[in-house]
């Protein structure tokens, strides 16, 4: 067995960077130095991660044809009972190692990119310290050895996301967005926590290895007992999935994601596209044996929620004009596809294709979506606007951005040989073999994706020739180098043999391209691109006419189907006005009123009694004498 205990430094290092930059950053270092420190720290972590990945996949070797789960480090952090304790540790298995690579790669790119993008911003070192915090929490999340450690880092990820969305804390919209993101995900995390509680009550363990052992006893606990027709295990897994829904911005908890684009663009690329939002997918993948073996109903929920979200988001994405929002909805749509793929999979063998496809897509998606966001950042940097209506014809000014953005768009549209072609194809295959309806939905989503991405592309780089206040210019090298690297990654990651590395039972899964699926999927991608070309290559009136034709549909999609308004109604009107305020009123007037009433009654009575003490000497004497006489009568005549 190879020693992996050094992996703990992957966690310690970013935490240390966070403390260093956060507490002493603005005093000890110049802004630029702290940026370089943060980036350098992350570079070391990236190297460590690559070494770990290499050693895990290619040196350690398999036992009985499967990659083993390795607990590299495990320290008891907090003991609840003999069996229940939170450990802090590092668990290595195919998905965590894969996530390690994804996170460090994208994070490093974003760090480098930010050196240029955030240059001269106030709070530069604060930005890098938050990024370090995020890296720390995200790495802790994927490396968690037990579900509670995951929950801890899950919360930390949420808070670092909160801090980074609200980075421009003087902008009211950013503050609102950060608040919204935190509260919505927090609500979802409540479900996660309840799920953990139920799960741990049944299985008496938090440990992932014990929990997800397909032949162990923990996985069979609570499958029989019913509540509302579903087993307790199913309920707990649905609750756990609720956490994933929140973090991965699935319907109906997706509303925070578009608003989260108020954060700096590198943050959007890192957190809200490539890494944090896929935590939900990762969570389901982590618990996959339980879903597949003990709670198939919960897995169906995963599939349908994923499929619905992907379609829903794709439709909205077609109407948005803020380029970051388009990308946000596209992220939601792609994650929905991953969820759906997980949902249609089952444990082991051929049936586990969806699992592999989902992980594969997660990997490729991280690369090309980060690329898209960073590209969008470069565009915004050049144009100083988020709206595609303010853009057009930018290909002349931003050649590198243009090329890399095009590569990313082609990738997401699923055109071979770009990476997403392979991963998306696997997802469609998995869906096709399991559920035809879901396949249909995903197929439509693939077409819509190609359409809205190229709508974006044509609107930005072609279309009308917009007059700019000052000529847009290409971004500095610190920004373009990550773009180029990520573009290369998008090109070639499709050829990574995921079926040999990351599968549901860690064994090799034989799968190849199925032409029956691959050809139509490419065709619908091309169709989407074609429509977008016709509509947006030149400035035409087709989009407006379409919009007027489907007036109501367009309006609903443009307004995101009014889900935000619904939430606002529920929170502002119902919770605040009909729960919190009445509770406050009740407390002031009923509970406190009762207490005050008791005091008032006492006071009134005592005022009455006080009247007896009139100060009239003769009254006292009269009472005294009457009393004496009465006592005398009593003792003489009545007392026996």
């Amino acid at each position, binding site marked *: 067995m190879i020693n992996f205990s050094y992996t703990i430094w992957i966690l310690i290092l970013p935490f240390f960077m966070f403390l260093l930059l956060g507490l002493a950053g603005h005093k000890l270092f110049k802004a630029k130095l702290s940026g370089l420190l943060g980036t350098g720290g992350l570079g070391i972590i990236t190297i460590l991660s690559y070494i770990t990945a290499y050693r895990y996949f290619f040196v350690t070797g398999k036992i009985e044809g499967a990659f083993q789960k390795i607990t590299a480090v495990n320290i008891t952090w907090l003991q609840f009972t003999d069996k229940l304790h939170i450990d802090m540790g590092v668990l290595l298995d195919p998905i965590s190692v894969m996530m390690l690579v994804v996170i460090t790669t994208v994070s490093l790119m974003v760090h480098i990119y930010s050196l240029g993008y955030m240059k001269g911003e106030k709070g530069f070192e604060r930005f890098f310290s938050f990024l370090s915090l995020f890296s720390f929490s995200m790495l802790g999340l994927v490396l968690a050895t037990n579900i509670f450690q995951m929950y801890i880092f899950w919360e930390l990820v949420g808070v670092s996301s909160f801090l980074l969305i609200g980075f421009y804390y003087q902008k009211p919209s950013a503050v609102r967005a950060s608040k919204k993101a935190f509260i919505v995900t927090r609500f979802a995390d409540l479900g996660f926590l309840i799920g953990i509680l139920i799960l741990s009550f049944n299985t008496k363990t938090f440990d992932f290895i014990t929990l997800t052992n397909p032949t162990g006893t923990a996985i069979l606990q609570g499958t029989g007992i019913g509540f509302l027709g579903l087993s307790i295990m199913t309920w707990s897994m649905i609750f756990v999935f609720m956490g994933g829904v929140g973090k991965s911005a699935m319907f109906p908890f997706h509303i925070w994601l578009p608003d989260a684009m108020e954060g700096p663009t590198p943050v959007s690329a890192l957190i809200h596209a490539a890494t944090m939002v896929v935590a939900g997918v990762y969570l389901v993948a982590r618990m996959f044996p339980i879903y597949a073996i003990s709670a198939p109903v919960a897995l169906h929920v995963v599939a349908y929620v994923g499929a619905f979200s992907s379609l829903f988001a794709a439709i909205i994405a077609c109407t948005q004009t803020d380029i970051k929002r388009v990308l946000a909805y596209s992220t939601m749509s792609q994650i929905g596809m991953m969820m759906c793929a997980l949902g249609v999979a089952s444990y082991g063998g051929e049936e586990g294709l969806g699992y592999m496809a989902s992980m594969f897509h997660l990997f490729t998606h991280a690369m090309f979506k980060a690329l898209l966001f960073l590209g969008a950042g470069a565009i915004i940097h050049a144009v100083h606007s988020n709206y595609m209506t303010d853009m057009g014809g930018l290909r002349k000014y931003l050649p590198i951005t243009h090329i890399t953005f095009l590569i990313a768009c082609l990738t997401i549209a699923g055109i071979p040989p770009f990476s997403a072609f392979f991963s998306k194809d696997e997802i469609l295959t998995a869906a096709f073999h399991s559920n035809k309806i879901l396949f249909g939905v995903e197929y439509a989503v693939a077409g819509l994706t190609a359409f809205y991405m190229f709508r974006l592309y044509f609107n930005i780089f072609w279309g009308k020739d917009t007059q700019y206040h000052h000529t847009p210019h290409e971004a500095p090298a610190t920004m373009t180098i990550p773009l180029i690297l990520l573009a290369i990654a998008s090109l070639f990651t499709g050829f990574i043999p995921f079926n040999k590395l990351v599968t549901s039972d860690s064994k090799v899964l034989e799968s190849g391209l199925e032409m029956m699926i691959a050809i139509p999927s490419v065709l619908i991608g091309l169709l989407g691109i074609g429509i977008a070309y016709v509509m947006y290559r030149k400035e035409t009136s087709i989009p407006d006419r379409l919009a007027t034709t489907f007036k109501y549909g367009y309006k609903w999609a443009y307004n995101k189907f009014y889900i935000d308004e619904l939430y606002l109604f529920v929170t502002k009107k119902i919770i605040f006005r009909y729960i919190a305020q009445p509770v406050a009123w009740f407390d002031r007037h009923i509970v406190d009123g009762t207490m005050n009433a008791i005091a008032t009654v006492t006071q009134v009575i005592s005022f009455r009694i006080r009247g007896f003490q009139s100060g009239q000497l*003769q009254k006292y004497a*009269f009472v005294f*004498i*009457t009393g*004496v*006489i009465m006592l*005398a*009568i009593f003792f*003489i005549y009545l007392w026996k």
Partner: protein
Amino acid sequence: MASNQIMFILFSVMIVVFSVLTVTSRRILRAAVYLLFVLVSTSGLYFMLNYQFLAAVQLTLYAGGIVVLIIFSILLTSHISQNFESSGWKKNIFSAIAALIGALLSIITILDYKFSATTEVAQEVNMKLIGKSLLSTGYDGYVLPFEIISVLLLAAMVAAIVVAKKVSPKSAELQNLKQ
């Protein structure tokens, strides 16, 4: 009817009548004079009971001292001819009822009770005996209460002076502050 009975009736009637007049008279100086008659009559009773010394004390101290003191204070605080307004009839009636019930109760009890007659020989009360008893420390001696009474009288005298003394401007100010 023996002479002593007649005397007793005379004194009793005087006491009762003048007592009632004392507490009902509308003129304060007259009330004081009625009180004087009551006290004098009482001293008569004391003579009848053969306590000459006490009767003398009663006459000098009460009739001579206290009543004079009272009259002085009346002169200091009110006009001689001042009628004081009658108090509320309610108060009068209730007080009268209480007093009557109390009196009846006591009288009934007194009449019910059988006092055991004594066979002891009566002791002659002369000044020598009184003086000896007052200064004796043995059995039947009253030196302790006597001394206490003397201290009490002294204290009362000092207290009366202190209380009645005119308030100095400074302490009056203080008192006003406190109000």
